[in-house]
């Protein structure tokens, strides 16, 4: 596909070609997983209901966070947006991310988790919302490092893009049940 769109050309170096393929293989792999689930459901096969367990849930949240944030990090726009923001914008965005993540955790529920209403507000917030935000932040930090955005930057310039991209990442983590 990269060749069809003219992104890979014979003039590219091996390291460039490898890098482009490696970057695209992550969403490609998740896409294959989603397709498998969709087609399996379409074929009317009996769905194997399996509880993912806590670590399984956290893993799925990480995959969901990675899936959405990879699409954002690959463009420069999100990092650009972070340069325009003041520290107060950053504080509000973190709060908003937690609120949206918690709202989705509460209303949609998570893959493999128990019914949200049985957990209570604070346990659900601590064990799923904060945990989901943690995996989002770590996934985003890893991706930003991979794309070379957080090499040689100060604390604010590390925290701000992480906070900005953790917003879609948190959405991805919370909706991993829908995506995967």
């Amino acid at each position: 596909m990269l060749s069809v769109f003219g992104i890979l050309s014979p003039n590219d170096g091996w390291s460039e070609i490898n890098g482009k393929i490696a970057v695209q293989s992550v969403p490609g792999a998740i896409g294959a997983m989603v397709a498998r689930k969709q087609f399996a459901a379409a074929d009317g096969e009996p769905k194997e209901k399996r509880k993912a367990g806590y670590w399984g849930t956290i893993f799925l949240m990480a995959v969901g966070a990675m899936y959405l944030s990879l699409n954002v990090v690959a463009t420069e726009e999100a990092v650009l947006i972070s340069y325009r923001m003041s520290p107060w914008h950053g504080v509000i965005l973190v709060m908003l991310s937690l609120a949206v993540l918690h709202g989705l955790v509460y209303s949609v529920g998570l893959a493999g988790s128990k019914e949200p209403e049985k957990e209570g507000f604070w346990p659900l917030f601590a064990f799923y919302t904060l945990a989901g935000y943690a995996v989002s932040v770590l996934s985003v930090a890893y991706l930003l490092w991979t794309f070379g955005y957080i090499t040689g930057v100060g604390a604010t310039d590390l925290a701000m893009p992480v906070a900005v991209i953790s917003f879609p990442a948190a959405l991805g983590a919370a909706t991993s049940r829908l995506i995967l």
Partner: protein
Amino acid sequence: MTDDDQSSETQREQDEHTSFGHIFMAGLGGVLVAAIIGVFLYEAFRGATKAPELILTPRSVTQSAAGYIVQVEVRNRGKRTAQALNIEGALKDGQRVVETSSATLAYAPDGSTRSAGLIFQNDPDRYRLTLEAKGYDQP
């Protein structure tokens, strides 16, 4: 023991096993949120000047087919990101400018260190090299 009892027993065992994991992940999330918000609040109350403060330092000279490449380290110690930062280097012999070269950095975020290359046809070691930041866009 019925199947239901067995499955609830398994679930309870699993909950007990994962209780450390629950606390660990909640703690990790709490620490990360506190760290991110802490950095923002520190920056918000520090109240330094809101302008880029750019320090240009020549790091090395390499001879290549294109000419002499001077690697310039650009540090932004200010509180603002400089976008499309134009830096210019000049080789001077006394007051006479022998050659100039310029480069544009896409971004120099606040608190960051970036690197740029200036290409000269004359050997920079034979002249006095001066570096200047000429201008930038505000993102």
